[in-house]
C-alpha cells in the first residue's frame, strides 16, 4: 500500500538542482493553483496582491535556480535606486555618470557569469596562456533580466518615462515569474503601469490566454521535447557518424525545436500574464513564413530584436551615422575575419586580404548604388548589432558566426532590394515567387542554425560536409521506418506553424463563450497526451550507413 512520505513532501519546497522548477513539474500545478487562489481573493487590495505576486515570483526563482535569486533582488535594488537618482538629477553630466554606473553594473553581472570563461579561453588560445577556467554556473534568466534592467534605466535617462515609485513595482516587473526562464523581454514602460490596475479581463482574454498557454505548452513539452530526445540529440552529438540525409533532417528538426521551445515558452508566459490582467506583446509571428531575412527578423523573438534595435542599433548611429562602437566592432570583425582565413583556413595573406576586402565592399554596395555615404554606417551598425546579438545567445564563436551570417544576409537582402526592387514589384505578389522566397529564407536560417546548435566549429563543418558529400539517398527507406514518429511530429509542427497568425483569434471570436467543463476537458486531454509522450517507448538511433 503506498504511503505518504513526509520527508519527500518537505523536500519538495526546497530547490533541487536536479529538478529545477519548470511549467511541467507537478509542483508547479500546486504552486499555480495556490497563487491564483490568493491573487483572486485579494484582487482588490492592490498592495497586498502585489506583495503576494512578488513573493510567489521570487519563490519561483528560488525553486528554479537556488541562491541565484539574490541577484534578481540585488539588481532590482541597484537599478531602482539608480533610476530614481537619474530621474531627479538635473545636471546632464551627473545624469550620464549614473547611467554609466547602471550599464557597468548590469553588463558586469552578465559578463562575469556568461563570458568570463569564454574570454579566458580566447586569451589562452591567442597567447598560449595557461589561465584556468573558473567554475561559474549561469544563473537562470540572467540574460533576460539584465536586458530589462538596461532598457529601464536607459528609458528613464532618455526621459521616456518616470521611474517606478515603489520598489515593489520594480521588483515585480523584474521577477514576474511567467517570463523568468526564456522571456519575452518586457519593457518597464509597458508593464509597470499595468501593475496597479483593477484586475479585469474579458471573456476573449480568458479564451486567448487558455489558447496561448496550452498551445505553448504543447509546442514546448510535447513537440520540442519529443524531437530533441528521440532524434536531434543523437545526430548533433556526433554528426560525422551519420549520413547527410540524417544530418539534414536533424537540422530541420532543430529548426522546429528552437522555434517550439522559444515561442512555446513565450506564448505560455504571455497567456499566463493575460489571465492575470497583464498584456505583453506577442514574441513570435510564424517566423518561418517570412519570405526574406528582414521579414524573418521582424517575426522572430520580436522582444529581443526590438530591444537590440532600440538600445544597440540606434545608439550606434542607426541608419543615420556611425559612432565609436560602429568603427570599433567593425574593425574587430574585419580583423578577425582576416586572421580567421589565415589561421583557421590556412589561406595565404593575399587571398585572405582579398576576401576580407570583398566582404567590406559588400557592406558598402548599397551606399555605392544609392550614392550616399550614410549607407555604409547603416550596414556596419547592422553587422555590429547582429554580431553582439549572436553573442548574447551564448558565449562561443559559433554564436558570433551565427550572428555575423545573419548580419551579412540582412546586408545582402538590402542590396538585392536595391537592385531588383522595381523590377520584381509584380513578382512579389506571385504565389510561386513567394513560395521560392520562403523556402530559400527558411534554408538559409536552417544553415545558420547548424552553427547555433553545434558545440564546436568542427562539428558544424562535419555536419555540412556530410550533407554535401555523404547524402546517401539510398538510406531513406530504413530512415523512414525507424524515425517515422519523429518525422510525423516535425510535420505536425510545420502544419501548426503554417496556420495563419489571426486564425486563432477568429476562432475564439466565433465561439464566444465556451462552457467551463469544455475547458477542463481540453486540459485533461492535454495532460494525457503529455503523459503519453512522456512515457512513450523512445525511438532509438540506428546507424544507416550499412
Amino acid at each position, binding site marked *: *500500500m*503506498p*504511503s*505518504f*512520505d513526509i520527508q*519527500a*513532501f518537505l523536500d*519538495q519546497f526546497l530547490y533541487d538542482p536536479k529538478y529545477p522548477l519548470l511549467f511541467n513539474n*507537478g*509542483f508547479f*500545478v*500546486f504552486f*499555480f*493553483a495556490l497563487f*491564483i*487562489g490568493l491573487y*483572486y481573493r485579494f*484582487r482588490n487590495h492592490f498592495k497586498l496582491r502585489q506583495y503576494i505576486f512578488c513573493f510567489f515570483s521570487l519563490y519561483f526563482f528560488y525553486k528554479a535556480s537556488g541562491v541565484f535569486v539574490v541577484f534578481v533582488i540585488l539588481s532590482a535594488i541597484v537599478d531602482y535606486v539608480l533610476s530614481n537618482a537619474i530621474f531627479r538629477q538635473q545636471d546632464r553630466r551627473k545624469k550620464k555618470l549614473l547611467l554609466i554606473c547602471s550599464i557597468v553594473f548590469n553588463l558586469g553581472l552578465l559578463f562575469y557569469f556568461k563570458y568570463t570563461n569564454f574570454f579566458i579561453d580566447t586569451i589562452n588560445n591567442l597567447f598560449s596562456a595557461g589561465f584556468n577556467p573558473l567554475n561559474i554556473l549561469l544563473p537562470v534568466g540572467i540574460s533576460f533580466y539584465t536586458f530589462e534592467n538596461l532598457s529601464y534605466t536607459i528609458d528613464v535617462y532618455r526621459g521616456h518615462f518616470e521611474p517606478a515609485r515603489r520598489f515593489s513595482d520594480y521588483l515585480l516587473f523584474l521577477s514576474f515569474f511567467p517570463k523568468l526562464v526564456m522571456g519575452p523581454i518586457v519593457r518597464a514602460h509597458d508593464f509597470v503601469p499595468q501593475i496597479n490596475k483593477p*484586475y*479585469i*479581463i*474579458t*471573456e476573449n*482574454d*480568458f479564451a486567448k*490566454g*487558455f489558447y496561448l498557454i496550452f498551445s505553448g505548452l504543447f509546442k514546448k513539452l510535447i513537440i520540442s521535447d519529443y524531437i530533441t*530526445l528521440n532524434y536531434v*540529440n*543523437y545526430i548533433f*552529438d*556526433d554528426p*560525422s*557518424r551519420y549520413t547527410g540525409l540524417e544530418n539534414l533532417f536533424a537540422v530541420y528538426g532543430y529548426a522546429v525545436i528552437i522555434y517550439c521551445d522559444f515561442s512555446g515558452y513565450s506564448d505560455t508566459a504571455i497567456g499566463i500574464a493575460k*489571465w*492575470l*490582467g497583464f498584456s505583453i506583446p506577442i514574441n513570435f509571428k510564424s517566423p518561418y513564413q517570412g519570405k526574406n531575412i528582414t521579414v524573418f527578423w521582424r517575426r522572430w523573438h520580436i522582444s529581443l530584436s526590438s530591444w537590440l534595435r532600440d538600445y544597440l542599433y540606434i545608439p550606434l548611429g542607426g541608419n543615420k551615422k556611425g559612432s565609436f562602437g560602429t568603427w570599433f566592432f567593425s574593425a574587430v570583425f574585419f580583423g578577425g575575419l582576416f586572421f580567421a582565413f589565415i589561421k583557421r583556413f590556412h589561406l595565404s595573406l593575399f587571398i585572405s586580404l582579398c576576401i576580407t576586402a570583398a566582404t567590406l565592399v559588400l557592406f558598402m554596395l548599397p551606399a555605392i548604388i544609392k550614392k550616399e555615404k550614410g549607407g555604409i554606417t547603416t550596414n556596419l551598425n547592422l553587422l555590429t548589432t547582429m554580431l553582439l546579438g549572436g553573442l548574447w545567445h551564448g558565449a562561443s564563436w559559433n554564436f558570433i558566426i551565427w550572428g555575423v551570417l545573419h548580419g551579412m544576409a540582412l546586408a545582402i537582402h538590402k542590396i538585392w532590394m536595391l537592385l531588383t526592387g522595381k523590377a520584381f514589384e509584380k513578382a512579389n505578389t506571385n504565389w510561386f515567387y513567394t513560395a521560392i522566397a520562403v523556402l530559400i529564407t527558411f534554408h538559409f536560417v536552417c544553415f545558420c542554425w547548424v552553427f547555433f546548435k553545434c558545440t564546436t566549429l568542427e562539428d558544424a563543418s*562535419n555536419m555540412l*560536409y*556530410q550533407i554535401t558529400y*555523404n547524402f546517401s539517398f539510398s538510406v531513406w527507406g530504413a530512415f523512414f521506418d525507424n524515425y517515422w514518429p519523429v518525422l510525423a511530429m516535425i510535420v505536425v509542427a510545420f502544419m501548426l506553424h503554417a496556420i495563419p497568425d489571426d486564425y486563432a483569434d477568429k476562432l475564439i471570436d466565433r465561439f464566444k463563450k465556451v462552457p*467551463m467543463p469544455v*475547458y*477542463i476537458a481540453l*486540459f*485533461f486531454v492535454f*495532460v*494525457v497526451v*503529455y*503523459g*503519453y509522450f*512522456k*512515457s512513450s517507448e*523512445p525511438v*532509438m*538511433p540506428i*546507424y544507416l*550507413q*550499412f
Partner: protein
Amino acid sequence: MNSNRRVLQFVAGSFSFYLLISIAGTLLGFQWIPFKRVNLISDVMTGDSSHQIMDKPDSNLLIIEDLPDKNFELYKKGRIITSFSSDTSLPSLNNFLQKLAELKTGKKRKIRIAYFGDSMIEGDLLTQTVRKLLQQTFGGSGVGFVPITSQVSKFRQSVIHNYSGGWQDENFNNGKTGRLYFSGHLFRSNGNWVQMIDQTITDSAAIIEKSLICGNGGSVSITVNEYPVSINAPGMLNRIPLVNDMFRGIKLSVANENLPVYGISFESAFGIFVDNFSFRGITGIEFARIDSAFMRAIAANNPYDLIVFQYGVNLLFRPNNRNFNWYGKAMLPVVRKIKNCFDKTDFLIVSTADRAFRYGGEYKSAVGIDSLIKIQATVAYETGSAFYNQFASMGGTNSIVDWAKRTPSLAGRDYVHPNHRGAEVLGAYLYEAIINEYKKYIRTRK
C-alpha cells in the same frame, strides 16, 4: 463584463479534479502508464506497487568449471585485466608481456595488436589512445591497418582518408566469401584510387613502411604514388611492402578486379602497433564465417601477438533483454576457432561498456547488462582468454548517464557511445591495466 472569475473557476476546477484522480489512482493502484507518469502526488508517495514485466535471467547459465586456483568472480572488478587466477599477483597475457619486455629492453621486433569491436571503437576511438600510449612507452610509429574505404573516414581523426567512389565492397552484411579480413571487408577495384595520410606520427624522422594487405591475385600491376608497380601476391593473405620512407601518406590505384584488397598498413620497422577493426552493429559472432585456412594465412603472414574482442552493446538492443545464454553458446566456438588458428597469440575479451535505456521516463543502465557481462566473462574463462570489465572500469551502473550529463560530456545522448573524450578516458584506463600486468610480469620474472 469581467471574466476574471473564469480563471479561478478553471484553475480550481481542473486542479481539484486532477488532484482527486491522482489520489484515487495512487490508492487504487491505477496502472495506466500515460496517467501514472503525470500523477500529481507520485513524488511524495512511497511503496509504489507497480512492477515491470521483464525477461527472467536464465537460471542455467553456461557451466563454469570450478578450477582449484581460479576465481571466476574476479570478472566483476574494473580497471584490471584478469585471467581469473586466484593469486592476483600473477600477470595475465604472459606471452604478450614477454614480448613487451623484449621490446623495452632493446630487441628490434614488432608487436601487433588486433583490436576487434563495434561502433564503440569506430573512427579509431579508444584504440588511437591505446596505440599512442603504448608507442610512447614501448616505441613504434604508425597507425597500423587502415581499410580501403570507410563510411566514417571523416569521423576518424588518426588518418586523412580519401578515395574514389567505385570500390566494390564485400562485407559482413552483403558478402558470402570466407575470406573477409578482420575488418569485415574485402575490396575490389577496376581503376579506383585511395589516399591515406597517417596523422599519428609524432617523430618526423621515423621511417614508415606502407604495406598492402591483400589476398591472392598472382602477379598484378598497381599504381603507387602515381608510379606503376608490379607486385606478386601468391598467398591467401599477403603483406606486401610498397614504400619505405619518411612520408606519412600513400596513394594507391588498383585496376584489376582479380586482386582482393583489404587495406594498407602503416608501421615503422619495429615497435608496437594497434590495428583497429571496427564494424558497426556486430556482436563478434560474424567471425564464424571467416575460413580457418584464411585465418591461418593471416597468422602466418601478418601475425598478431594480442587479439582483443570488444563487443556487447549491440546485444542490448531491447530495454528488457536479460537472456544472453544463446550469445555465450554462439561465441564460444568462434573464439575457440580463432584461437586455434592463432596458437601463439594471447586473447583478451573486453566486456560491453555501459548502455542506458529510458525506464519510466529516466535513463538508467540496461537491466540485462550484468547478465551479459557474466556471459562474456564466461566465454573468456572457458576459452582461457583474459578478461577486462569495461563496464566496471567506466564506473559501473548508470555511468553512461553520468558521462552524457557532464560538461564537457564524455558520451553521446544516445546513452550508448562514449564520445572522443570518453573514449580517451577508456583507452587510458585500458593502457594502465596493461601496464599494471606488465609491472607484475617484470616483478615475477626477477
